């Protein structure tokens, strides 16, 4: 079976990435990947590269067996969706209008949004507790509401592979959990997700696989249980950690560095 997305001898075009080894990685349906790494390691660049928004220094990407470059941007957008770290809101729009934008790749030049598209957008808003705000202006939303709206837009786009750059940004505790469970349920329906995360504990809980990205471009990846290796994580973050077990979950706590 073809992997949903496969990288072949991939190297990111980042000046700091001096390591010579390349990324030969494949993402299967039903997998939920977490990308872990310190600030500036290239997590966002990797996600943008997977989405085809930024060319790699070398290597190739295969989307369901087909080279990504040969696909039109619209064909890519039907398979790959990306949640950005920040949203640009220079122009006013309502919450519903913004979610409806996600239908763009599904419509041809002359098509307008149908009632079905509208229903999909409303459904996505509903799943993120945003339906009551449907007619609100996006400029009036709080940071967390805006982040959930971006997720709703991604759900409306309905791609096979969800690429998420820090999906829990700005979210309160409750919504961090509900959003990650939402992503998990999407993956269980046969899609796949790759998300850059800073919270080790959330990654440990919701990801099935992890990719550790080092500042020099080295990476190692595999199933969660193998990757949650304390010395490796301490090297990755240059930070001593404590590991606890509770309710069958691994809990990581950073140690004080001057103690």
């Amino acid at each position: 079976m073809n992997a949903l997305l496969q990288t072949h001898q991939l190297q990111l075009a980042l000046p700091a990435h001096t390591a010579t080894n390349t990324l030969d990685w494949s993402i299967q349906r039903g997998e939920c990947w977490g990308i872990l790494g310190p600030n500036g390691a290239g997590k966002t660049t990797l996600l943008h590269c997977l989405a085809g928004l930024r060319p790699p220094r070398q290597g190739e990407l295969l989307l369901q067996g087909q080279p990504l470059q040969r696909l039109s941007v619209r064909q890519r957008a039907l398979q790959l969706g990306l949640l950005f770290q920040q949203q640009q809101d220079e122009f006013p729009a309502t919450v519903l209008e913004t979610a409806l934008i996600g239908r763009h790749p599904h419509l041809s030049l002359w098509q307008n949004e149908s009632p079905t598209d509208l229903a999909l957008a409303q459904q996505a808003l509903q799943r993120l507790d945003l339906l009551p705000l449907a007619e609100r202006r996006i400029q009036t939303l709080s940071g967390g509401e805006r982040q959930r709206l971006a997720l709703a837009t991604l759900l409306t786009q309905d791609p096979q592979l969800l690429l998420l750059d820090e999906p829990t940004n700005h979210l309160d505790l409750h919504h961090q959990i509900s959003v990650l469970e939402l992503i998990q349920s999407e993956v269980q329906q046969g899609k796949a997700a790759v998300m850059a995360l800073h919270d080790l504990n959330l990654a440990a809980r919701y990801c099935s696989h992890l990719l550790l990205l080092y500042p020099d471009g080295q990476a190692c990846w595999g199933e969660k249980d193998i990757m949650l290796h304390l010395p490796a994580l301490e090297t990755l973050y240059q930070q001593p950690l404590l590991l606890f077990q509770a309710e069958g979950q691994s809990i990581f706590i950073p140690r004080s560095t001057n103690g």
Partner: protein
Amino acid sequence: MPNQLYRRLPLLLLAALLALIGGLLLGSVPLSPLTIWAVLIGEGNPLERMLILELRLPRVLAAFATGGLLAVAGALMQVLLRNPLADPYVLGLSGGAAVAALLAMLAGLGILWVSSAAFVGALFSTLLVFGLAHGSGSWTPTRLLLTGVVIAAGWGALISFLLAVAPSSELPGMLYWLMGDLAHARTALLPWLALLAVLLILLPLGRHLNVLARGSLQAAALGVPVRRMEWLIYGLAALLTAVAVTVAGSIGFVGLIVPHLMRLLLGHDHRLLLPASALGGGTLLVVADTLARILIAPQQLPVGVITALLGVPVFLLLLHRSRTL
């Protein structure tokens, strides 16, 4: 949702028609509606025919098309630069046109050459800004905007220089041109063709523009061929502005205010916004030009004065009453 907004489009169309009729009816010489009707169906005496067919009708039509061109160009520039403050002239287009036109006047060329020079100057400025903004790296809206503003400042200095060294016999003509006036308008055919052609090209691309307004990365992630779209928008906006400048010099304000007026009235969907801007811009300029002709008749006012006097209060009122922006 957007569907109920579409119902306001016929209202705009009606307003545009009323403005056009008003523009034909009103002038410093009183002519009855019956006389005008007679002339339009091919009757009337030679004097009335000359007044209406040679003076009023071409001017009203040129005003409408020019207003439409400027408003659509403004809406496009705002999306291209992701900046609601952008107007058709923000990238130095009118400055390039003005410098070329003034040079043509200094060379003692006729008005037709002056217009052609303005057109070439506008396009030259467009290419200059685009080339320089491109530079070594790729261009971003901020880079484009900065380059444009600096180039515009450069043109401004050149205009002042030309005015300073120009022989006094040429000076009044140069100043009139800079003020912008529909009295320059010789033909309404060119602006109408440009306006209709561009609207036709943009008709299927409205949703692309909606997505592009959310930022180029988001647009690319949603399947918009961003670079190609931005080239197209830039090219079309430049063309529209160049034609408008060629027809009537630089008339400020329409390109900035009309797209926002339409956003306040009709929302943010470019499929609706672009035709609405064309109608709204045309209506505003026809009304303004008609008022400029009759307000203190037989004296004539520069049309830019009226567009501002009319647009500012209407815009502020709508802004005050709306929570959209």
